């Protein structure tokens, strides 16, 4: 738990504090209680920019040996056991993104052999990557938000833990959320600053013991911000009339975002806004410092997961994405492995243990979020996690070089694994499913189906039936 989020006050008007439920001890797969009408479903897609084993390794430290329940946790997913969430997190292994040589037609949701620039498109959008680095369809979080998120304060959260790109190499894949707008498919730049995310979510909230003067002061701040944005918007409009067409288009995008912010501030409920039983107002987080290769992402991940937990608990948002690390990530993992090396470099180094610990770092934060959701009670007494569908997918798996069919390569989309958590839609929880040859995005599609979005995910219409039974 983040030190800054530690002390909490219950929201105004809420009688009780949500107590953590005792950790669920049952080792049998947990069947979520049937959907309770009126309790909303929540969706989160998360991503780690790395593969699952080093070059030459035939085995990874992620896929358990045991199929079904009571699966074993190797180093890569050991944090699931530590957090006590193996009974609510499923591991789906044996997944494959089809890869073909560049001169062959790309199959649906497939890629060519170019690894870093070709994987994330199909993971984020479920569609094949025809052009390097291109994402060509809306991402899962945005697809879900369109259906279940539009009435919320934040229709779709788009956040990233890795605070900087850290160097000029790499794929520059720093966005995982894409949505259709008037300008066509648009990348949604993720928010990185904990303070900015806190502001987005808890703008207008006040502690329950806030006196009328504090309420009036907060209302005055809202009025001031609105007057300012009104003035800025009017000036922007006036300026636009003096600009050439290209500049006018740029300014129009800026103005659209100003109007959007204005609308959000107008709709604020001063003094409250959350309505879940587990909804508490955290203190504003401190901003961790920014570095040239590491910006305390361990703490950032904790804070962002805390904020997402509360966004769900307070029903401020029902859909979102969290990019832990960029594809081909240049983040320095010294804090974890004890020597300075980027996450991507560790994939190239033949130390399976260190690489698996890096996988485990992502899993640790995912597991911590899952456990917080599990320990939060909904109004009807059910666990918040019973109404969630969360996934954690990684950039690659490991397997034979797709070009030669030989060797074992970290830059492969064979043997990928996706973690799935949550009981939304009555999902079975806590098993290891070996879904040989299925697409990793089929797991994400399963999560979309779990929250009631049964439209298919790009070119992926498949799902993981073992999770639905």
């Amino acid at each position, binding site marked *: 738990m983040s030190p800054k989020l530690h002390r909490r006050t219950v929201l105004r008007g809420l009688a009780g504090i949500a107590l953590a439920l005792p950790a669920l001890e049952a080792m049998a797969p947990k069947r979520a209680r049937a959907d309770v009408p009126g309790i909303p479903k929540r969706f989160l897609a998360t991503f780690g920019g790395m593969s699952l084993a080093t070059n030459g390794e035939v085995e990874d430290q992620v896929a358990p040996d045991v199929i079904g329940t009571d699966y074993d946790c190797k180093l890569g997913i050991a944090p699931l056991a530590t957090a006590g969430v193996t009974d609510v997190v499923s591991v789906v292994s044996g997944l494959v993104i089809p890869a073909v040589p560049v001169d062959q037609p790309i199959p649906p949701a497939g890629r060519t052999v170019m690894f870093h620039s070709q994987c994330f498109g199909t993971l984020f959008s479920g569609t094949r990557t025809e052009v390097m680095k291109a994402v060509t369809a809306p991402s899962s979080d945005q697809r879900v938000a369109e259906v279940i998120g539009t009435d919320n304060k934040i229709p779709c959260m788009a956040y990233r833990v890795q605070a900087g*790109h850290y160097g000029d190499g790499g794929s520059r894949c720093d966005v995982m959320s894409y949505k259709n707008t008037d300008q066509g498919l648009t990348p949604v730049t993720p928010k990185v600053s904990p303070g900015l995310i806190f502001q987005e979510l808890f703008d207008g909230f006040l502690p329950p013991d806030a006196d009328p003067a504090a309420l009036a002061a907060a209302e005055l701040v809202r009025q001031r911000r609105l007057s*300012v944005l009104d003035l800025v918007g009017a000036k922007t409009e006036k300026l636009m009339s003096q600009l050439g067409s290209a500049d006018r288009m740029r300014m129009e995008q800026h103005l659209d975002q100003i109007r959007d912010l204005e609308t959000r501030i107008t709709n604020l409920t001063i003094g409250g806004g959350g309505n879940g039983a587990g909804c508490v107002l955290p203190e504003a987080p401190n901003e961790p410092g920014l570095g040239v290769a590491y910006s305390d992402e361990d703490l950032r991940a904790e804070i962002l997961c805390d904020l997402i937990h509360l966004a769900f608990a307070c029903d401020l948002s029902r859909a979102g994405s969290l990019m832990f690390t960029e594809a081909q990530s240049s983040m320095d993992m010294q804090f974890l492995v004890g020597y300075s090396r980027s996450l991507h470099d560790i994939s190239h180094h033949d130390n399976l243990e260190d690489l698996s610990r890096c996988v485990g770092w992502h899993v640790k934060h995912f597991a911590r979020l899952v456990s917080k959701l599990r320990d939060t009670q909904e109004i009807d007494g059910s666990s918040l996690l019973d109404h969630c569908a969360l996934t954690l997918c990684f950039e690659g798996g490991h397997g034979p070089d797709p070009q030669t069919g030989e060797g074992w390569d970290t830059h492969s989309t064979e043997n990928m694994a996706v973690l799935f958590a949550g009981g939304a839609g009555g999902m079975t929880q806590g098993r290891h499913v070996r879904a040989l040859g299925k697409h990793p995005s089929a797991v994400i599609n399963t999560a979309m189906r779990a929250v009631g979005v049964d439209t298919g995910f790009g070119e992926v219409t498949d799902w993981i039936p073992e999770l639905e039974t």
Partner: protein
Amino acid sequence: MQDRSLSMTALTTVLVAAGCIGHIGDRDAFDGSGSEDGTPPPPADLVASAGLRRLSIHEYDNTIRDLLGDDTRPAATYLPEDARTPFDNDYTKQTASAALVDGAEALAMDVAARLLADPARRDAVVGCTPSGPEDSACATSFVESFGRRALRRPLTDEEVASYVGLFGFAGQAGDFYVGVETTLWALLQDPEFLYRVEIGRPATDGSGVVRLDNFELVSRMSYLLWGSAPDDRLLDTAEEAEIASRDLDAEEVRTLAVEMLADPRGAEQLYRFHALWLGFDELPHDPALAADMRLETAALLERVVFEDAGPWNDILLAEETFLTPSLAEHYGLPPPASAEGGWVPYGTSGRRGLLSHGTFLVNGGKFEDTSPVFRGLAVRQRLLCQTIPPPPANVNIDDALMSESPCKWDQYLATLQDGCIGCHSQFNPAGWGLEEYDKQGRFRTADPAGCEIGEHANGEVPGLGSFRGPGELGALLAPSDDLLHCLGTQLVRFATGRGEPAPEDVALAAALLADRGADLRFDELLLDLVSSPTFAFRKLEE
């Protein structure tokens, strides 16, 4: 001289013959700058189109430092990271996302709160002592003076009234400074603060070219030469010219620019241009080591460009370098005389000039070691502005190099197979020539696996010649036309904020260089640029 700049050098011919390497802006780059017989092109052909440019994170931080005395550099916390192509001010990469606009609001509120918490700074910015919460005279004077600095032009009466209107909140709150704070929120989110707006005065000939007004011109100068907003003196100069209904002429602009370069911000920007261009803007080293390296390179740049006022390419030839004792130890060079640091002769170390600095040698760092491929690409792309096509589509560049041998040389032989060697032979040798220097700039004789580097560090820039080590590379490049063209092109890219140079940009760079020989001075190049006939013009983007 014009012809020389337009001709293809021997080097270019070699590379084009190899089918591998072009130059930045090549497509029709050299067509825009006039006819073959050397007659000067009409200015319109040299006028670069330019779009609205948002302040980069770096420029935002500099601007609030200079306007408000806030040196906390908060922008990176709130604004999305700027793309580097290699410069961080490439407006074609800027998008107005919710993250940006929400971030700009949070940043404005953060900056304003910090100002109000510091009465001395606050009073200096406000400039008057209010007689009460709604002292409209003080409010007006603050809005007029600070508004002019924030928007980089005087406000209209209507604008002043609209900002003073925000002091109604001061009355509600019973606190004048609530009005100040609200006004700061508004000005720091104003499109004319966040973006550099250049509307100008349309030329009468319908060519789509506009002449910047005097305020826009001094802003263009200050963001180029200082990376920050124009100060009161520049704005006063612009205002006097506006009142007199005339444009500042080339001589006045040049005189202003000479004074601006003498300001410490001129030296800061000198470093920043080189750091972004040459790839050492961020050094992934221990902070103390990185700071010493920055000091070393900044000292050299300032000495060559400002103190000695020598030829720019002396930065590649310098026979001594500015070291702190710990950096000297890091490099294995003799310590400086002073504990504060000092100039140390390179002697017989094989080092000379900036390419021997830890800053430049960070280029091509890959894994825990250096990559001769990326080092070679840095020489050709960054220093010589050559464009290298991506690897053939059937090559998976993500594959690790596999070899039975642990030696780096043997592993990199994979890049010299059939189908690879055509291009790789054009840049690998330039990287290998630097192989005896690790990514922290330390000299070594063996690769990390312990294999002797030996003859493998006999490097080459095909078309220019062979070299061994950064000192000899500097000597090889210093007299090269390609290097000077690259300097000119990069400077114009930095000035226009366009990552992909237009033909006009390349032509402008060629015209600037045409009047100068290989001994050109960087300060004179800057002065030529800002006082060139085209600097005060802008072509509207379609």
